[in-house]
């Protein structure tokens, strides 16, 4: 996109005169289990599924792996921005990171998933690892630590949505998920809900791309993808924003590390191996923790 001016104007310049309210119907296609029915090469359109089970299988195969037990490792870079109410948004820092998830089917089409994330800050301009950045809103230098997310309680994921393992009631969180074809590609757009107890200003959305050839190959249980997305989240403590109203946005670009940790970028992998080698392995012990009665009820029902 060359010109953000047009984007600004478009939000304030509605209503082209020649617009017609009547449009041709959208091309829709069926896809059984995400792999069954072919879609012609010339088509671009939205994919529909026979039922929520089939749609879920397509999603899980894309984001995880349809086998009974598996791992998914993704690698990405993202830039975080601060948005202070009434002020110009500003980029703060680049990160390079990974998400490592490990999961096991517990019944039917429901998997138990645990995961950890690790990201290192990098200089916005040089890309070098860094430990200090400037907060342009406070005009101060701030220390910034690697981001380790190790306390994820885990989640059940199935056709009804997500159920965090620390849930107090059985309230599956539905998600927004759309699959569409773009010629030889399949795109998966997924907006995740905010679980109870999370900060109000939180949303996460991704668009993952796979080849249609892989998508319709039933032998592929875990699809290689490229992904981009964003998330909105509150100011982290290290930003030292006090009570300023506003929030952060992170925008990422990445891919599945298809062959596991050896497929991580070298400098990143070497740093993890040096500082936290245990995070280059799936933490299978997380899956040994007993499920609460609420969760057991959810699985049984």
């Amino acid at each position: 996109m060359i010109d953000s001016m047009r984007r600004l104007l478009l939000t304030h310049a509605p209503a082209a005169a020649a617009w017609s309210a009547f449009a041709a119907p959208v091309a829709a296609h069926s896809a059984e289990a995400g792999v069954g029915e072919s879609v012609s090469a010339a088509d671009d359109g939205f994919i529909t599924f026979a039922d929520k089970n089939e749609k879920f299988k397509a999603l899980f195969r894309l984001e995880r792996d349809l086998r009974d037990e598996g791992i998914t490792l993704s690698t990405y870079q993202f830039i975080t921005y601060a948005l202070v109410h009434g002020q110009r948004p500003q980029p703060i820092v680049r990160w390079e990171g990974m998400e490592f998830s490990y999961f096991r089917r517990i019944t039917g089409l429901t998997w138990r998933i645990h995961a950890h994330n690790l990201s290192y800050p990098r200089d916005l301009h040089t890309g070098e690892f860094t430990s200090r950045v400037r907060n342009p809103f406070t005009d101060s230098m701030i220390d910034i630590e690697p981001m380790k997310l190790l306390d994820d309680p885990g989640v059940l994921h199935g056709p009804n949505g997500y159920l965090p393992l620390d849930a107090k009631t059985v309230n599956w969180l539905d998600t927004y998920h759309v699959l569409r074809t773009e010629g030889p590609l399949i795109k998966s757009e997924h907006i995740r809900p905010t679980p109870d107890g999370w900060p109000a200003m939180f949303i996460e959305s991704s668009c993952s791309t796979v080849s249609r050839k892989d998508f319709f190959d039933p032998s592929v249980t875990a699809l290689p993808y490229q992904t981009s997305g964003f998330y909105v989240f509150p100011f982290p403590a290290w930003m030292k924003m006090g009570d300023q109203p506003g929030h952060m946005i992170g925008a990422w670009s990445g891919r599945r590390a298809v062959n596991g940790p050896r497929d991580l970028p070298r400098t990143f992998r070497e740093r993890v191996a040096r500082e936290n080698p245990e995070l280059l392995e799936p933490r299978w012990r997380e899956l040994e923790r007993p499920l609460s009665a609420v969760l057991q009820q959810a699985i049984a029902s």
Partner: protein
Amino acid sequence: MKRRDLLPAIMAGMAAGGSGIAMPSAVPATPRRAQSLSQFMALDPIENFRQAMRLQRSLEDADDILHWYHFIMVAVPLNATPKPVVRWEGIEFSRHETIGENRYRMHGHNLSFPRDLKSGAFVTEVRNPVSGKTVAVPPMALTQDPGLVRSPFGVITLDKPSLPPRPDYKVLRRENDFVKVDGIRVPPDTWPVTFLEMGTEAAPAALFDDPAQTWLPTEVSGAYVFPWPAWMQMGDAPGHMFAAWSGCKLRSVDELPEEFRQRAARDFPELLHVDRRAFERAVPDLHPG
């Protein structure tokens, strides 16, 4: 060179890397690479500009550049949960012409049609998830772009041509079989404060490494922050909108999805071409930067 001919092989090829994982995924068989590559490209400012220009547009002295994309708008009310509002399918169609060494003048337009979040069907109204009201949402056709001049020094928006160029952020990096440019576009000070645009554009590294390729096929993704649009009817409510797109650069309108192209041809036929008359307008007092 068509994107549709290239990407399937690249998507398959990205599954590269070593073996040795305890539980390999059942993924397609692909060649193995000794090391997974991720590298920032250290380029001088001129070359950084030229390679970004090549990725985002082309290095031809004059060229029409077409981007096509889907994007989803999300409402971000202050201190409340962000909520998706509407999907759009659109194009940005622009032209650049060189006006000096490594200096380009650009004009273009955008056209987008709203689509239902879930079904993907074209829509004329959506539910504002913050207010609960159903609001009319018109297509977005913008032809009033004043144009800009882009050079290694930054961007001059042609409604304020005498102002110095605003530096912009472009970092190029290699990621296995792709070369990516991460860009952040900061608007002029005269714009409403709640505005920022960021994006990543990726081209096959094999083509990037061939200097004969002046135009590169790219996949584009990105996002922008902007104030409440009038059609959301948000009044003075604190907060803003956010939109994230995914799309690609195409060679011609003939490559547009049939449904979009047919509607554009019916409702806005003039927007399937770039209006080159914009280049005939003189730009007095253009900053030399």
